[in-house]
């Protein structure tokens, strides 16, 4: 018997008597006999130790960041997740609570989300942030939905260096809306923004840039912002790395209308890419078009400060088919992890994490570029803490990743055809990497 069901045979008898039935079958008499299931074609239940043994053996077959020194990035990073974050997010008061519709008994969740929104507005400089989305890709798709609602056209200009999976999600979700996606031109591993100001923007709903882009490169966001000024201009959507923003210029300063991203880099475990939390922040004129949940600070009946879900008339449970999005929940618990990690790191910790990541990344990039036949994919481009290198001719990127794993390193993400051709590696350096690991990476990638 499961440990999670409590009715004894005596309980069942008593309950059925109270209900006035003599068998359970009477309660489900509405189910037509022809669709009643027989025994399910799966194994019988296991005990807790047996179940965990199965899970442990599957987990042991994976080569995680606790086994390999992780230099892989591409949107998910091996960042610091403090022990105290795990302790708070593991509390049942947060983990097993429902969506905070009943504000009076959900002040903990509500205030934590309000603090998440505050962290996001302070990092991005934007006026408002929501309670989070499923992930970075769906946050981007929702930003384009917002733009197509706010502007007349259906053209969307997008950097050629958007995260490839984000691009695919965009294609999937915006297909029914009739989005016409066009790629901006490229220059090396950067988006060529020189023609943007002269572009005919009448039917363009949004311009989407990623900063740093999929190859880690910092784009000329100020140039884009200047080209997209004015009320009639397309909605300027910036996809950003939240962890970079302790050091890198916030999207509000270069004129972004909507900033989206992945809160994972603020201190959520990687967990094979989910659950993470998407960030959605915008200028205040878009407040009523924002998808998902928003928490506001107000008052209770006695005038005492109290938090509550607000602007719910945008949402599906009220507005149904006319809602700004079909999203129901946010990712409250992972947003909480990002909030607690951010609270622990603090201003100085965030700045140090960003700065040390950048210092170590630039050191590693310089050392790798010193290896014969290895070069940065775009030597003129600037980057934050992730960069792409081209491998010597004849070397296969997957083979390099495999060989480095033999030596204990997850060397990066293999690139099949980086700008300029050949094969490459996308290498990310987080605050978790030590100088010894940087040196070790360089030594082990040399000719053996």
């Amino acid at each position: 018997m499961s440990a999670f069901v409590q009715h004894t045979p005596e309980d069942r008898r008593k309950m059925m008597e109270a209900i006035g039935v003599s068998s359970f079958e009477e309660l489900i008499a509405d189910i037509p006999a022809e669709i009643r299931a027989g025994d399910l074609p799966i194994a019988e239940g296991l005990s807790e130790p047996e179940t965990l043994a199965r899970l442990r053996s599957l987990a042991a077959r994976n080569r995680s960041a606790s086994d390999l020194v992780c230099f892989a990035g591409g949107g998910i990073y091996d960042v610091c997740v403090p022990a105290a974050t795990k302790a708070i997010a593991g509390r049942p008061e947060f983990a097993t609570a429902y969506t905070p519709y009943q504000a009076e008994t959900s002040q903990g969740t509500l205030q934590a989300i309000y603090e998440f929104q505050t962290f996001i507005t302070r990092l991005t400089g934007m006026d408002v942030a929501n309670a989070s989305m499923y992930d970075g890709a769906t946050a981007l798709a929702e930003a384009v939905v917002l733009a197509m609602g706010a502007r007349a056209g259906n053209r969307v200009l997008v950097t050629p260096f958007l995260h490839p999976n984000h691009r695919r999600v965009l294609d999937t979700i915006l297909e029914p809306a009739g989005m016409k996606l066009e790629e901006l031109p490229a220059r090396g591993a950067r988006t060529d923004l020189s023609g943007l100001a002269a572009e005919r923007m009448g039917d363009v709903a949004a311009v989407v840039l990623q900063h740093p882009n999929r190859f880690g490169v910092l784009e000329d966001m100020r140039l884009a912002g200047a080209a997209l000024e004015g009320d009639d201009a397309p909605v300027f959507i910036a996809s950003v790395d939240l962890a970079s923003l302790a050091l890198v210029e916030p999207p509000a300063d270069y004129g972004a209308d909507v900033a989206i991203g992945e809160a994972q880099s603020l201190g959520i475990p990687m967990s094979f890419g989910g659950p993470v939390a998407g960030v959605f922040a915008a200028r205040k004129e878009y407040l009523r078009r924002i998808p998902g949940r928003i928490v506001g600070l107000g008052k209770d009946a006695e005038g005492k400060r109290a938090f509550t879900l607000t602007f719910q008339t945008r949402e599906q449970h009220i507005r149904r088919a006319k809602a700004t999005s079909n999203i129901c929940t946010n990712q409250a618990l992972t947003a909480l992890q990002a909030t607690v990690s951010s609270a622990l790191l603090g201003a100085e910790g965030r700045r140090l994490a960003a700065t040390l990541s950048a210092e170590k990344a630039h050191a590693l990039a310089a050392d790798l570029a010193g290896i014969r036949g290895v070069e940065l994919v775009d030597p003129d481009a600037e980057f934050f803490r992730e960069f792409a290198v081209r491998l010597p001719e004849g070397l296969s990127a997957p083979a390099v990743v495999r060989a480095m794993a033999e030596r204990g390193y997850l060397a990066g993400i293999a690139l099949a055809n980086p700008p300029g051709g050949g094969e490459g590696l996308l290498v990310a350096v987080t605050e978790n990497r030590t100088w010894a690991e940087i040196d070790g990476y360089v030594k082990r990638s040399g000719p053996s």
Partner: protein
Amino acid sequence: MNQAETMDRGSDDQGRVVEPTIFEISRRGRRGFRIPEEKTEGRRPHGIPERFLRREPADLPDNAELAVLRHFTRLSTMNHHIERDMYPLGSCTMKYNPKLCEVAADLPGFRDLHPAEPEEFVPGAVELLTHLQELLAAVTGVYAVSVQPAAGAQGELTALLMARAYFRDRGENRTKVVVPDSAHGTNPASSHFAGFQTVEVRSNERGEVSYATLKDVVDSDTAVVMLTLPNTLGLFESKIKEIADFVHEAGALLYMDGANFNAIVGQVRPGDVPFDLFHLNLHKTFATPHGGGGPGAGPVGASQALAPYLPSPLPSRRPDGTCFLDEERPSSVGRVHSWHGNFGILVRAYAYLLYHGSDGLRDISESAVLGANYLMSRLRKTYELPYDRACMHEFVLSGSRQKAKGVRTMDMAKRLLDFGFHPPTVYFPLIVEEAMMIEPTESENVETLDRFADAMEQIAREAEEDPQVVKNAPHVTPVRRVNEADAARNPNLCWNGRCG
């Protein structure tokens, strides 16, 4: 935007906790975490040109670890949660979230796994995803399942995008999605975002979808009929076979919103009805924690004809038994998530499935249905029961008798908080006046059900004898009734004060 006045930490005169924001308790110079090799800062240049840097540091709070822990621990005590007491939210399935599932998701081989690793480095993860999909397909009787959608609403959208692609490939231009008036709001919203027009169909006097009305609405323009089974009144659609036959004869697809699957797991397999498409909420039937509003997971199931349209990549098994992520699926609607869905949630659901197995799953639905009927048998004496028949896992009461005395359902919901219970789902489904939708789940024993019924009965008495105590509720929560309208009129959506 106005800023509420800063509050000091402590308790007010009624012992209610007051907790300032993390930004207010900050003091510059305090640290809550040490970054590796901090002292080496500046050993090498960070290399980012000035023009890319922020001009002013972000105003983030500084607090020591213990202060952060106390802050969030205090906040946590202001929440209701499943380990404190019953959570009878209808259609939300607030069941116990087993600890063994938490241990499973926290294994380093899952928790610390990077999603862009070569497949050969992550065979355990790919095997888990594949086997979970196989188990869900076996439990639901469908051809294939994708676990990529991150939530129930995303599962709905994914399935409707699949239907859209399916009809396009068949050269059929079907523009309508039919949903009952008792449906969740996500159904019409997902339908809209998938490019369909939503047509609502009335429920009949038995609380079921009216077969007659459905016949008037479903035609050659109809792409999908979405049904929640059991429906949001907690009733099994007794004409489901006839409905399925009719929908299929009209050339449309039948979709099951699996929000209420907990009532029928092990009893009915949607694929046997047959439904063509469905989503499940793993955070409901398969007990993953709700997290205060996510993360969840919303797997989609499909018949053989619809399976080619499932999202990519699709974890799949080769003839030799090994698993891989199948990207070569030309009919697929594509990706709906950055990576592999909410993997950590999927690990928990997988552990839950292995633990329960075929015997345990049926025990869940039986116990959930029994508990709901028992509670209904107690409460029907005190509250109006608009659909007076055996229910499945939940039932809907109306507060209409109490409303006649000037006490609204919202008042009674808030009063329940004073008894330590979370209220039921209120004012939903929309077709019941002053609705209270109650789902006890299989987790609650008979003593707890009795305690909840006692509280509901006392509130009904209070509504007669002392209505003010109900109308002014709650009285002992961390805050009194919150003025939501005022919060929307004067938006304060982030803390504007500077950190100390």
